[in-house]
């Protein structure tokens, strides 16, 4: 795939440059070397700038649009969960913050470590180091991870159950969509990922704090995913 893209680019380059005359080149070998160097650098530059385009060409636009929509949908679900976790179902946000002091997820980082709440990575989805297949794999693994975390949160509270269930369904849909696309491209891993050990929430506080952390981590994960997918879709 990359090869074909490269070929496409390198085939195109000569036509972009004026054809040098053979006679002057023979008279000035240094100039010829300089010209070759210039050609090599420009080829590299073109390759770098067109790499995302080549990546995007391999993914159907329809798939990318669906993925973006799914990310927005999960973000909306996650926001709803966060609001319910922080604000509760009855009182105002300020009052609940004052009651539970769980307004800021950044205050729960240590608790997250102690509970063993993992974070999904999207290192291969960065625009600088974007690797299409690696990014899709990370996206899928991340979504798979959050499915497990949401399952662990399932008993957090009866009031939150419908929101958690919906979020779980939407994440599962997104994960399936990405997996099928990987299958279509023939880059799906030989073995499907399996769920690791999930945290256990033993108290009401842990469940509340765990919920806030998972929702917050999920939002961060989705923001990264959205940026990557948007980048691919725009390309």
């Amino acid at each position, binding site marked *: 795939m990359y090869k074909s893209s490269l070929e496409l680019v390198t085939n195109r380059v000569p036509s972009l440059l004026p054809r040098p005359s053979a006679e002057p080149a023979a008279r000035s070998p240094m100039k010829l070397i300089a010209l070759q160097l210039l050609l090599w650098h420009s080829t590299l530059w073109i390759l770098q700038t067109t790499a995302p385009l080549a990546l995007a060409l391999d993914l159907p636009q*329809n798939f990318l*649009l*669906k993925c973006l*929509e*799914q990310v*927005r*949908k999960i*973000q*909306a679900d996650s926001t709803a969960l966060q609001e319910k976790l922080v604000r509760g179902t009855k009182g105002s946000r300020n009052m609940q913050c004052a009651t539970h002091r769980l307004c800021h997820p950044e205050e729960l980082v240590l608790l997250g470590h102690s509970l063993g709440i993992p974070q999904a990575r999207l290192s291969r989805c960065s625009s600088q180091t974007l690797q299409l297949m690696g990014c899709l794999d990370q996206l899928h693994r991340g979504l798979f991870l959050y499915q497990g975390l949401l399952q662990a949160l399932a008993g957090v509270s009866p009031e939150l159950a419908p929101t958690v*269930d*919906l979020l779980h*369904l*939407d994440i*599962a*849909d*997104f994960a*399936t*969509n990405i997996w*099928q696309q990987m299958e279509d491209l023939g880059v799906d891993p030989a073995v499907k990922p399996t769920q690791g050990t999930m945290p256990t929430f033993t108290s009401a506080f842990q469940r509340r704090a765990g919920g806030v952390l998972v929702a917050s981590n999920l939002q961060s994960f989705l923001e990264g995913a959205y940026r990557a997918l948007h980048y691919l879709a725009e390309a």
Partner: protein
Amino acid sequence: MVGLTAWSLTGAALILLLLPPSLEDCAHIRVSTPIVRLGDPVTASCTINQTCSSLGPESQIVWKLEAELQPGGKQQHLPNGAQESTITLPHLNHPRALLSCCLLWRGSLQILDQAELQAGYPPVVPSNLSCLMNLTTNSLFCQWEPGPDSYLSTSFTLKSFKSRENCQTPMGSIPDCMAEDRQSHCSIPRKHLQLYQYMGIWVQAKNALGTSKSSQLCLSPIDVVKLEPPTLGALYPSPRKDPPQPECLQLHWETWKPSLYMEQKCELRHQPQLGEAHWTVVSPLPSTVPGYELCGLLPSTVYILQIRCIRWPLPGYWSNWSPILKLVTGQQAPTVRLDTWWRQRQRDPRTVDMQLLWKPVPLQENSRQIQGYLVSWQPLNQSREARVLCNTTKLTCTFSLPSEVREVVLVAYNTGGTSPPTRVVFLENRGPPLTGLHTVARDPHSLWVGWDLPIPQPQGYVIEWGLGPHLHGDNNKTWRLEHNGSITGTLLQENIRPFQLCEITVTSLYQDAVGPSQNIYAYSLEMAPSHAPELQLKHIGSTWAQLEWTPHTPELGESPLTNYAIFWTNAQDQSFSTILNASSHDFVLHGLEPASLYHVRLMAASQAWTINSTSLTLITLASEDSLMHILLGLIGLLFLFICLCAVSCFCCRPSRKNPLWPSIPDPAHSSLGSWVPVIKAEEIFQLPRLRDPVMPPITKITVLEEEENKPEPWESNDDSGNYNLPTLAPGLCTPG
């Protein structure tokens, strides 16, 4: 009645007591197939066990379908002593029927067992399966058409499976969705769906006679999403901003919240509320707009607006149109040209009474929203404010001005502003006169007025017209300003009525003067006189009658008379006529039959009309021979009367002892005198011919003085004139 009911109940109780125990056990129906296709045969057998021997060994088993006895049962004894009857119903034509096995027992039919038979058809293949993803209920709603009734209980199941594109390979099951009884729709809940994956869906219909499947749909649930429309509203401009343009509306709309995550496109449609306007659609529009200015609308118009959205660019279905929003566009300042004219009257040396007239001529469509007019005068001293002379909704205004003021300003206004000002300069009357003014009637309601083109050519003309001459004053005159100075005529179509004199005034307009007004009178259609001349009988004879009439003097608006025509008809309905000059005023009818009835009618005619006089009925005098016969008859009667009188005098003499009749008291001296009718001599006379039933009732009788007055040519030389006949049989005429 009560006794009968009691006896029936008692009888039934006795029958139940007398029956062997548990009749149900002793008989049993078996049906080959309890549910068959409608019209198919059914075979049933009824077995009566040996335990029911008390019913008698030779009891006859009878079959009934509903209430009808069914012949054809074949009864036989079974080896175990039981009796069995078998029947085949060739065509079961009822969707549901009860088959009864009965027995004749002591004269009455006893039902021993029953079986319910059902008939119908296999289910028809359900059609038109369609699905919509409903984000409100978060479910995939599918509906279908079940087809005609199968007459059997039929269940519909929505079956589906998860798959990849084209739905060729099932990749996961989805629980069936059972439609409720008699429903042809079912909703698959979100928890069983993968919104972004393809799934195959079909409907299975099943009843006792078979199963059918609809064609399969292959869809991704989110691709069949049907959204709810956005909330459309008006955006009212803040007071700090400029007022909105009259042809624009400020709108905003908000996406339906559950669909916020979807990219959508929307379309807005609008149309004026009144009239038969068509929708104008504005598309594509974003799904959420904080403020949108919709322009290109008509000012001062009520608009109805609706919006709808669709998932886009990914697939989806259009939402329904939002509820109607009614908004009114702002008013536009009048964009009209004001044609003006004036009439002035010098009140005193210093003041002029001026009547200003104007007409708004719209320069744009729908620019006639005018609430009023302002006439103002700017005094020479510019520092002073303009003085408002009139503020009116009418198209005319009368005011007084100093004689030296020759200019006023007229504007039309509404809430949107004022029209461009129209300067009205009262020009001096010193232009050349208009010549050759003439009119031609086009039809009863229009007149063409023409003139010679003056030199120098005017800039335009003012034409005023109305009922004339000066019957209704200037206020009822219609006027028109013609801006083309090269025309030599114009068609007047307003305020023209047939048969009414129209006064037309044309004034030429020049750069800085007006010409003297020229008048002309005309009719669009001339009328007939209100009545024809009245026909009168002047003299009459036995074969002639002289008629006369007073000619009608034409009035204004009446076209001149061209001729008269006289028509007369005798009793045998024979008609005669003659045409006379318009100058005639009398005529003699010749060749009439003596003592005959005639109807005479005069018709006056012009080029435009004809009018008939009232009908005159006359009877000619009797001829001389007839008079002689009548006279001889009368003399004979007189002689006979004298004879009778003589005889009566002889018989009534008082010297006679026995008079021929008893003595009668003098009526003059008795009470009978008051009631005995007095017979006058003139009432005895009757003209038998006048009793002709065809003669019309006589309303007026003219007694001619004497026959001698007749004109010379028709003077009679006969001596019978001595009888002075005209006094006995006068000529009669009756205006009919």
